[in-house]
């Protein structure tokens, strides 16, 4: 709130006529917009302002947080016991699955000709609480209570236990803004798990649907197909579940199929999410994460995802000295030909 104080100190009397002052502030606003939109020079200013805004955001969300706390502390013993039993069952289930996973990962590594199984692509993760959520048809954002002080960076993947949530756009010292995959300005490169067909899932502006606007009318996709992240685009690693196709409409008149999918993550009911760090030299890591990450300026993946397939092979081969020598070949092998997204089905059939 220091900004208010310094600004409001001047306008009484001597600051010139209202017209002059308005011109001054209008020019200032336009310059600010230009620098923020085009040049991205204002990261430092945003960082400071985000720090100033965080107490207000916390205060605004405190009634909801207090209500949640009261609800939790008034839970009955029975409810807790029931939940405990359920969690124990779930844990046993997951442990069994994890056992199988170890074996499969090892087997997979052997099949790929590696001496030992690869470590998981997620290097570490950090649970974060959702401070506030903005869910309307124009903006689907949330604010997390972790920031640069915890090592969070811009363009970091955010997941929950079911699937992708979104990515960070602005990171303050103690908080981070997240754009959800359902925001109309967000696009995530995906792959249809059944067929391997790559495409892009764009947010539709409500928490329960994504649109797949770039699929041709004859694309092999049907309701119930699982969409996983394709690893292109530089933010999300390969193979994480994103959404399930709910509706496919093919119109003889229109060249493109109209496809809707429902995100798997519980975007509207989560209260805690995961910020994830990925191993850069892992075959399933986000493609071109070292290079494309720098170009992903405002976290607007819509601007990024389309050229990504063409650009991906070049940075993987040349300017990645930190990658270990055996890593790039499997990356290329796993991702098969770096074809353009729309052309993928045709090329997949011909050979």
């Amino acid at each position, binding site marked *: *709130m220091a*900004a*208010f*104080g310094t*600004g*409001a100190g*001047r*306008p*009484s*009397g001597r*600051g010139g006529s*209202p*017209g002059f*002052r*308005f011109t001054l*502030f*209008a020019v*200032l*606003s*336009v*310059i*600010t*917009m230009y*620098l*923020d*939109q085009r040049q991205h020079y*204002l990261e430092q*200013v*945003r960082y400071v*302002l*985000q720090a*100033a*805004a965080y107490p*207000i*955001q916390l*205060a*605004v*969300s405190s009634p*909801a947080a207090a209500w949640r706390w009261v609800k939790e502390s008034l839970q009955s013993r029975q409810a807790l016991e029931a939940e405990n039993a359920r969690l124990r069952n779930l844990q046993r289930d997951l442990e069994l699955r994890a056992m199988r996973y170890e074996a499969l990962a090892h087997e997979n590594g052997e099949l790929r000709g590696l001496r030992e199984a690869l470590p998981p692509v997620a290097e570490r993760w950090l649970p974060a609480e959702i401070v*506030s*959520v*903005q*869910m*309307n*048809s*124009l*903006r689907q954002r949330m604010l997390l209570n972790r920031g640069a002080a915890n090592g969070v960076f811009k363009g970091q993947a955010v997941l929950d236990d079911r699937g992708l949530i979104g990515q960070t756009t602005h990171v303050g010292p103690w908080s981070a803004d997240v754009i959800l995959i359902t925001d109309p*300005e967000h696009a995530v490169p995906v792959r249809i798990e059944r067929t391997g067909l790559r495409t892009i899932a764009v947010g539709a502006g409500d928490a329960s649907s994504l649109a797949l606007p770039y699929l041709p009318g004859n694309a092999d996709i049907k309701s119930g197909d699982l969409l996983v992240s394709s690893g292109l685009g530089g933010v999300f690693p390969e193979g994480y579940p994103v959404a399930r196709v709910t509706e496919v409409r093919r119109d003889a008149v229109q060249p493109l199929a109209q496809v809707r999918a429902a995100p798997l993550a519980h975007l509207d009911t989560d209260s805690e999410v995961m910020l994830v760090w990925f191993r850069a030299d892992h075959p399933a890591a986000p493609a071109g994460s070292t290079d494309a990450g720098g170009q992903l300026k405002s976290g607007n993946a819509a601007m990024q995802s389309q050229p990504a397939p063409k650009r991906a092979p070049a940075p993987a081969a040349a300017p990645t000295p930190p990658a270990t020598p055996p890593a790039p070949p499997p990356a290329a092998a796993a991702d098969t030909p770096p074809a353009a997204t729309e052309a993928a089905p045709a090329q997949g059939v011909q050979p």
Partner: protein
Amino acid sequence: MNVDSRARMLLTALVALILNVLPLPPWLDVLRPEFLVLTVLYWSVNAPRTGGIALGFFAGLMLDIFQGPVLGQHALALSLVAYIAVREHQRIRSKPVFQQALLVLPALILYEVVLFAIDGWTGHPVTTPLRWVHALTGALIWPLAAPVLAYSAGRLT
């Protein structure tokens, strides 16, 4: 008096900002008036030397942090609205509250138009007609908000 009224101004602006960003269920969110714009309008009209354009600019900048796609959007819109209110403050101030509401409506619409235009220029096309509802509810709540603001400004006892 000057320091006191400035403190009151910042306090009302802060409360309005909180009301503006308070999470609400979607149907209420559509109806929510732009409290911060109303507050800036009130101060620009009733204390054009204390509040005014600088208040509009910095309040808008805070709003940009909370909900703006680009820094400076709300700042520009709010300083424009504040400038008009400061210029016309004598004409607006002399009217009864309900007539003031009729003058506040075009100011709020202008505010939304500026936001709309900047949204378009910066590549955030927004086509839902619901965004214009804010202007209407803002004008409707003005007869209620003005006395509350006057009370917090210490002009009514």
